[in-house]
């Protein structure tokens, strides 16, 4: 195993100062559920000489409600997300995603910040945060910036953040009254399995069933995780027709093939993306 210094951050300031001083030679460990595997498989860059542990930084672990806004510290674990009554009430799509991850051990260690920063194509909280239109707060040294999660990903396992930048917080507006949300995933077994594909949806219809808001995102589908706005637009301002559920799935599967190319798994993924989308929409939208 690669040799490195292990530093336990005492505070947020300590962590940021340390990271700034290391200029990319330090790697942050939070839950470690990805980094430890990387270390074992020799995937850590040889330039890294320090691993900084932020799991003890209490300032990063919180779920707060400020009016319409929900703010989550990047160091909050999946288990904490899955147990939060604030979240189940304000954004159940994220609660469901967090609850579905790995196993109790992984949920107790892994954090929402780590899930975003690692940006595995199958990350379960990412589609949920995409449909929540979450904003990310990052800090580099003393300077702080905010970015929309939709603009944060560059490709599989690549995000638009500097090596010495730390993700502090994820925030989003609570679901509007009457909005429905759903998270579903397909796995090879019922626990401890990466999502073969996952889907998050938020939908709002008025009393005449007219769709006022619809947001759809699927993981393990495109190189850069995204919302599927073409499919969303099919329903906006209209009363959903049953046949549009499958049509939306086909729009998404075409977009997948366009963006990912026709891969070894596409024969399987294409019909399943369509089916997952149609099934999810059927569950959250009332049709005419």
């Amino acid at each position: 195993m690669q040799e490195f210094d292990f530093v336990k951050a005492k505070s947020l300031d300590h962590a940021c100062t340390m990271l700034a001083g290391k200029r990319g030679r330090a790697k942050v460990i939070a839950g470690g559920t990805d980094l430890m595997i990387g270390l074992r498989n020799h995937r850590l860059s040889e330039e890294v000489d320090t691993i900084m542990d932020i799991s003890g930084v209490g300032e990063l672990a919180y779920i707060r409600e400020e009016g319409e806004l929900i703010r989550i510290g990047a160091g909050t674990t999946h288990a904490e997300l899955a147990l939060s009554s604030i979240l189940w009430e304000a954004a159940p799509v994220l609660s469901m995603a967090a609850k579905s991850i790995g196993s109790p051990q992984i949920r107790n260690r892994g954090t929402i910040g780590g899930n975003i920063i690692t940006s595995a194509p199958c990350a379960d909280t990412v589609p949920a945060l995409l449909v929540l239109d979450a904003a990310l707060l990052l800090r580099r040294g003393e300077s702080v910036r905010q970015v929309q999660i939709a603009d944060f990903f560059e490709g599989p396992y690549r995000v638009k953040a500097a090596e010495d930048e730390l993700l502090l917080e994820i925030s989003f507006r609570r679901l509007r009254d009457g909005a429905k949300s759903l998270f579903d995933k397909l796995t090879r077994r019922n626990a401890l399995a990466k999502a073969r594909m996952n889907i998050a949806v938020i939908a709002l219809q008025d009393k005449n069933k007219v769709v006022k808001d619809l947001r759809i995102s699927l993981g393990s589908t495109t190189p850069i995780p995204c919302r599927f706005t073409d499919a969303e637009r099919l329903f906006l301002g209209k009363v959903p027709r049953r046949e549009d559920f499958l049509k939306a799935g086909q729009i998404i599967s075409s977009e997948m093939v366009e963006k990912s190319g026709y891969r070894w798994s596409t024969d399987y993924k294409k019909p399943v993306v369509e089916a997952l989308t149609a099934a999810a929409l059927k569950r959250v939208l009332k049709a005419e």
Partner: protein
Amino acid sequence: MSYKVITRPLKRIDAREKVTGEAKFGADLNFSGQLYAKTVYSRYPHARVLSINTEKAEALHGVEAVITAADVPGENELFGRFPVFAEKEVKYTGDGVAMVAATSKSIAEKAASLVEVEYEELPAVLTIEEALAHGAALVHTDAPGNFIENTHHLMRAGDVERGFEEADIILEKTYRTQFVEHGYIEPEVVIALPEPYRRGVEIHGSIQNPYSIRENVARALNLRISEVRVIPGNLGGSFGGKDESVMLMAARTAITALKTGRPVKMVLTREESILESAKRHSYKAKYKIGARKGGTIVALENTIYTQGGAYNNKARFANWRASVHAAGPYRIPNVKTDLYGVYTNTIYGGAFRGFSAPQVVFCNESLMDELAAELGISPKEIRLKNCLKPGDELVTGQVLRPGKIPAPLKQMIEEVCSRSDFDRKREEFSAGNSGDEPVKRGIGLACTFRGTGLGGEGIDTAGATVTIEKDGSVNIVSNLNEMGQGMRTAHAQIVAETLGISYGRITFSPTDTSVVPDGGPTVASRGTLAGGNAMLIAAQKLKERLLMEAGKILNCSWEGLVIEDEIIQYRGKEKLSITFDELIPRCIMERGLTLSAQGWYNPGPEELDPETGRGNAYPSYIYGCAVAEIRVNTLTGKLDVDRITAAYELGRVINPQIVKGQLMGGLIQGMGYGIMEDTETKEGYLITRNFDELMLPTSLDIPEIDIILYETDQNIGPYGAKGIGEIGVELSAPAIANALFHATGRRVRELPMNLERVLLGRALKR
């Protein structure tokens, strides 16, 4: 007959140490001055080794030895042609070309990466088809056609040509199964030490079969068998797997231990373990079956190719077992079966719980349902009509004579079907599946039978030593090995029952090849059967010795004495008695008797006709029947098993809790085999290297399981027990495959029935 100790769900004899963590496993052992060893693996599936340069590795500070084939003092080729080190050629990516031993694990890891090997790639054969193709590259130049030596086994009964002429319907189907990894929780470990007191070597580790490993290490080291001592520690599971790779580890570390004069420890990483250890053989099985309109089967012909990998020492036995069972638990007058083992430049097949049965039973029982569907009769009916019944003749020619070999299968099928409500649910699910709902439900049936013990594979001997100490404690040691299956507990119960004493008096010692004689391997569900018989024989000798001595003390004839509840008493005369605690010190201290006895069980060889494969293949058979209920999402291919109802005939239950645990564990392992587990490869390189990819079932995948146990009398094992270690694994895959067909109308003939196969009917390759 009422029993005092057996038939009861007593606590495992080694439960406390294992639950509290006090029990040590191989990796927990450390010896002063030990070195850490690491194997340098082949870079190619098939290549010529041009040169090996160890200089850089040897120059690294802390490296004490780098060894290659040139350092092997004895034979480099072990049982099954496994090389201690690949010398001129590597034949798969798990071949070891060198091993380094260093003062720390990290130095060993670094040194392994510094060993420079120059290769010239050779064409590789990676599948059964490639290996059998005309003009295929040869894995072993002296094995023409890539057929593995001694692996063609056959069965000939009746006349299949005539049988097919009598058939109203003939079906031909091909089935395939995959290589799967055992997935034991403890990875392999071996520690070899130079014998401190004499010439030789002492080996500890996670070793399933210490005697065969002792023999092979002796050959590699040019030592006499008695100069190699093997002490398998506690094993964290094995299922047949801790054998070939552990043999190589033992040889490599023992050579290094003697060369350096220091203990050498080698613990495999999970990735190394999955690369280098045996897998369940992959099968390609072609079947042809003929039946009359009413459902009576008249002929069966099958040709089965078993993928053996680069080296193999198990297909010669496993294929024989398969030849006896390849017609299933049915009365079929005309049978022609052939099995062939095939070399490929891939991971290799070995022993894995079931030893050919999981593959064969998947094929047979899928075929039975296909035949039933073709004939328009129910899966239950076709089995009831054709299953083995008392008086029937097996394909081997053995007759199921009541009182000799029991045949309760018909009754078991009826009971499992009624308990699972099979007929009603079949109709109910079919009706429910006709709608638009993507989730369909299915129910499927499967049956099996299994020859007990080794049968014609080898002589089914076992040895045991039972010793009563001065304080009345009783120590047992078997030549067979505890791997988590609960064998020691069964042995302790048998000894306590026989001696008429309490279970709490029994202690055990681990197996040690220098203490107990070689009674063969711990395989073939024979721990209780053969091992228990050896215990019974030893305990009976001691009992007789105790009764004779008590007769002298009590001044009565010993034949009238019995031991019960630790009191030796003359039948019907309460006053003529002495307690076990009084008797023991008198025997040992006053009379100088030895209260140590060896038990040796030897049923003798089974007679077989090499021309037809027929004869007394096994002394007895056990039976199983299972019904699986599933849900499958027809839009995604996701399959969940809701419930399994199963019945097993097993002679006598020595410990019901352990028996049910074994059978449930088997059903779950069989379910993983059926729907999830695979070993994915790409161009000869293994991709599945750790548990994240291996897809063993988790607790959330496990269905409700309902098990019915059938006991029968007049069996060959101790107190009428037979073996139940393996049969549990056999029925899940076919019962699920049949349920899947019921749910969807589509037949999946390849394992595993994963998302892609269920949805698309085929697997996808990366």
